[in-house]
């Protein structure tokens, strides 16, 4: 087990954060959850996260804007996009803007954990993904 990953989850659906926080904590992530993109951006300005997970379709500032902001602020941070409105054009746009990965809702917690593990590997601090698998059995 390496050092903990700082993860920010932003989704205007409160349940997403509420349920993903314990799910990601199991694989060694320190998770902060937000439902409002403005507050999330403020926090991102304060602190450099390892991973930002954001919904795309949100009031005021959408996920793509958050993505641009994060990429501009810290090239190191991996941004994972979630959306219920998955379409090829949005997916390509997100990737072009520097997203690390893109996942369509609905997804299983394990799907996201796999992506987080991939991101951790890319960040140079691999995590023990099997920790969650143990709980899954």
């Amino acid at each position, binding site marked *: 087990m390496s050092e903990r990953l700082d993860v920010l989850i932003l989704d205007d659906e409160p349940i997403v954060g509420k349920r993903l926080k314990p*799910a990601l904590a199991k694989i060694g992530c320190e998770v902060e959850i937000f439902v409002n993109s403005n507050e999330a951006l403020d926090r991102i300005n304060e602190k450099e996260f390892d991973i930002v997970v954001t919904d795309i379709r949100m009031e005021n500032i959408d996920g793509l804007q958050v993505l641009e902001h994060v990429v501009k602020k810290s090239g190191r941070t991996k941004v994972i996009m979630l959306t*219920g409105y998955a379409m090829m054009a949005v997916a390509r746009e997100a990737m072009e803007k520097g997203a690390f990965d893109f996942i369509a809702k609905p997804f*299983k917690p394990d799907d996201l954990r796999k992506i987080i593990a991939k991101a951790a590997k890319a960040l140079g601090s691999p995590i023990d993904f099997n920790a969650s698998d143990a709980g899954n059995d």
Partner: protein
Amino acid sequence: MENGKQKELRTLEGHYDRIESIEVARKALLDRKRMSMRFLMYLCFSLVFLIALGTAVILIITNSRVEKKLRFLEITNDLTVEISQARRFEKNFFLYGTNLNDALENIYHAKNILDQNRSELKKILGKDEHERIISSIISNINHYEILIDRLIKTEPSQMVSPKFHSTKKEIEAELRKYGREMIAFAQDLMKKERESLRRILSLSRNLHIYSLIFLLIFLMFVAYLFGSRLLSHINRFTTYAQRIASGNFTPITPTRRYRDEFTDLALAINQMTQELEEHEATIVQSHKMRAVGTLTAGVAHELNNPLNNITITAHMLLEDYDTMNKDEHIDMINDVINETDRSKKIISNLLDFARESSSQVESLGLEKLLRDTVDLASNQLKLSGIKISFQTTGNLPRIHGDGQQLQQVFLNLILNAVDASSKGKKIQILLVPADEPNYVAVKVIDTGKGIPEHIIGSIFDPFFTTKGKGKGTGLGLSVSQGIVGKHGGRISVSSREGAGAIFTVILPITTIPDKIMHQQVLL
């Protein structure tokens, strides 16, 4: 279920009302005395013929009168000739002492003429006149004859007697007096007859002229009558056609006292509008299904959010079931239940709208209707990344109408605005009192690409579309206009290319529900 049945009943009722109103119109149309154009035409031609006949009869009568006058003139002429001849012999006798028997013979002839034509003369002159004139002529002739007779008898015996000359002179004077009177009478008669003949001839001439003028006027009147009647019919049916084209399917009701061939046309049109309306209902429904199809994409995506919540929660519950306490379990299960409800709501909105229901008129609060419509379109708006705002001055009176159909109109306008707008733009919906009193206005304002000036006049035409092949039917606005027209309202548009468009729907406020209900039945 109960509600559905009631709805169905009411719909059926509406349908029967509609058929009944057409039946009522049919009865009213037929329940009039028939005065067909063909009958009128026959009537007029018969009248013209009668006038011509009358003129002809009068002319024939005049002709026979002229003939009679001529005959009388002939008689009087003969009479005058005979009397003149007699007088000539009489003159010769006094001058040269020639025979007087010839004069007597002429007198005899004259009397004969009068005798022979007595009845005729009586007819021509009339009884009283005949008595007066003829008797005076006859008495003159008789006197004359007696005098001639006396001359003939006295002459041979008293030629030498001195009294002879004086007697002869006496007789001569008397003879001349009677002869002159005779001639004068005959000539007077002739003059009178000529005068009367001249009058008759001029009457006949005038009759010709007057009958021609009368015929001309009469024919002009007939032409005007038919022309104006035909024209008024055609104008009437033109307005009917325009009315039907604008979506008002009120049956044609009688406007005149009599029925004619155009009544049959009106009946056929009433029948046609009934069928048109049935077809229109199909078009409205199929257009609604297209809107539903468009909305489905938005709904499918919107469903992903609750589905995701359920998926994550269920998986986490499964994963951590043993390590969590009962409260946490209940919290998670409640989340699943709530999210399921949310999914149901997302779908049921659309399903409610999609359900086929025939028109029913009710009191409607436009504010709620518009909010529901915005809700219905909200997924589509999210999908397109377009914001929508709804503002109202509030406290607007209710209107009466078919909520579903009006919702279809507003939804169509919103979806059109979405199509015209690009991502990040805003659509504004305003519910305000209209400029006209007793109307409310709903404005759908977008800041999209706008409508080019050269097509703005035709956007309400059926099958007009700016969308690509297979994307639009070109019926949306046309159907919307039909629906709004049925509610007694209007749709108008103002747009500047590149600056967006404003669609305004105005609808009448109705204070007396019964009135519009009744109108709706007639529609």
